[in-house]
C-alpha cells in the first residue's frame, strides 16, 4: 500500500516538474512528460492489469489539469502502461530507455489521435513534432531519474529488490 502512496507522490512531483520544465526549459516550445516516465517505470514492475488501472488513474489525474476532453489521457496512459507491463522489467539501461521512449511515443500519439477523433481542432498543432520532441526530451531525462524511479517501483515488492 505504501508503494502506491509513493507512486502517487512521484506522479504528483512529476506533474509539477513537467509543468515547470515546459515553462522554463522547453525544447522548441515543447516540454517533457515525466508522468509517463514514472508510470512506465512502475508498470515494468507490475502485472498488466494493475499497470492498466494505475495508468487509467494517473491519466485521469492529468486530464483534470488540462483542457482536452477528460478520459483521453486516462485511455492513452492505461493502454501504454498495460503494454509496458506486458513487455516486462527492463534489465539494462538501453532496454529501459527504449521502453520509456516507446511509452512516451505511444501515449502521446494515442492522446493526439484521440483528440482528433473527438473533433478537437488540431489544424494548427504540429502533433508529430510534439510527439517526437516529448519522446526525445523524456529519453534525455529518463537516465537521470532511472535509479530513483526503479527503487520506488520495486519498493516493498516481495523479492523486488534488485
Amino acid at each position, binding site marked *: 500500500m505504501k508503494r502506491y502512496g509513493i507512486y502517487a507522490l512521484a506522479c504528483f512531483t512529476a*506533474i509539477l516538474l513537467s*509543468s515547470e520544465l515546459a515553462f*522554463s526549459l522547453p525544447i522548441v516550445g515543447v516540454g517533457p512528460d515525466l508522468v509517463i516516465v514514472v508510470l512506465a517505470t512502475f508498470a515494468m514492475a507490475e502485472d*498488466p492489469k494493475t499497470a492498466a488501472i494505475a495508468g487509467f488513474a494517473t491519466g485521469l489525474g*492529468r486530464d483534470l489539469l488540462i483542457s482536452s*476532453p477528460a478520459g483521453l489521457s486516462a*485511455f492513452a496512459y492505461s493502454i501504454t502502461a498495460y503494454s509496458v507491463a506486458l513487455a516486462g522489467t527492463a534489465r539494462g539501461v538501453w532496454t529501459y530507455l527504449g521502453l520509456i521512449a516507446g511509452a512516451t511515443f505511444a501515449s502521446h500519439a494515442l492522446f493526439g489521435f484521440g483528440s482528433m477523433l*473527438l473533433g478537437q481542432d488540431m489544424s494548427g498543432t*504540429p502533433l508529430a513534432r*510534439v510527439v517526437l520532441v516529448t519522446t526525445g526530451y523524456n529519453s534525455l531525462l529518463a537516465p537521470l531519474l532511472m535509479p530513483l524511479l526503479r527503487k520506488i517501483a520495486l519498493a516493498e515488492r516481495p523479492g523486488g529488490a534488485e
Partner: protein
Amino acid sequence: MWRRTTRHRSVVAAVLVATVVVLTLDFRTGLIDGMGGVVSEIVSVFQAGVRTVVRPIEGAVGGVRGLGSLRQENEELRQENIRLRDQAARFEGVARENAQLRRQMALEDAIGITGGTRARVIAASLSSLERYLEIDRGAADGVEVGTAVLAPEGLVGRISETSARSSRVQLLTDAQSAIGVKIDRNGETGVVTGIGGNRLRLELVDRTALDRGALRVNDILLTSGYQGGVFHSNIPVGVIEEVDPSPRGTTYRITVRPLVRLSRLDIVTVAPKPAVVAATPGPDAQRTR
C-alpha cells in the same frame, strides 16, 4: 494462448468502457470540470512554490553562464567577480521585475487600461498540444474568463478558465486562439490565429488590400477591439515576418511573430473588460490594482 488473448481483450475493453464513461461525464455533466477546478487549485499552490524555488536558480545559472569571458583574468579578480556576480544574480531578478512592471504600466497607460490585476506566472501547460499558462490570480481576485492578459511588450493571450485562486491563460500561439487585429500603419483588419508553434498566422485580410500590397514585412499588428468588447483596442500583438503568395496565387500566407516572448514571462496583467472600465472608471479600478 487463447486464454491470454481473451484476457488482453477484456482489459482493453474495460479501459475503453471506462474511457467512454469518463468522456460522457465530461461532455454531459459539469462534474469533471468541477473536479478539475479543485485539482488545479491544489496543484497551483505547489506550482507557485516550485516557481519560487526555481526562479533564483535560473538567475544564478544566468550569472554563472556569463563567467566564460573572465577566464583570462587573474585568480583574485576572478574570485571577486564570482562574488559580485553571485550578488548581482540575487538582485538581478528584483531589478528585472521592477523594470518589467514599469514597462507594463507604460503600456497600460498608452492603451488606456486601468484597474488591471497583476499576476505571476506559475506554470505552463502539461500538454504540449495546448499552449497555456497558469497564473496565481483567480476569480476571487476579480479575474474573468475571456479577458486579455498583457506583458510589457503586448498581448499574451486571454483567460480561458478560472478557479478561486488561479487562472488559465490561453496563449496567442494556441491552435484554438483567434484575435481580431488591425495593421498599425493603415488600419487594415484581419484575424491572428495560433498555429501551435512560436508563430502566428494572419488570416481573413481583404484580398484586394493584399493584392495592392497593404501588408508589409515588419508591420505591427494591434488588437482591433471589435471582439464583442472583450479586448481593448491598440494592444500590440505581433509583427509581420513573412508575406508569401501561395504557389497557385489564390491566397497569401502571412506569418506573424508575437511581440511578447511567451517563454519568458514572469509577471503579467489581467486587463479588465473594456465595458467594465467604461462603466466603473474610478473606485473599482483602484481597488483591483
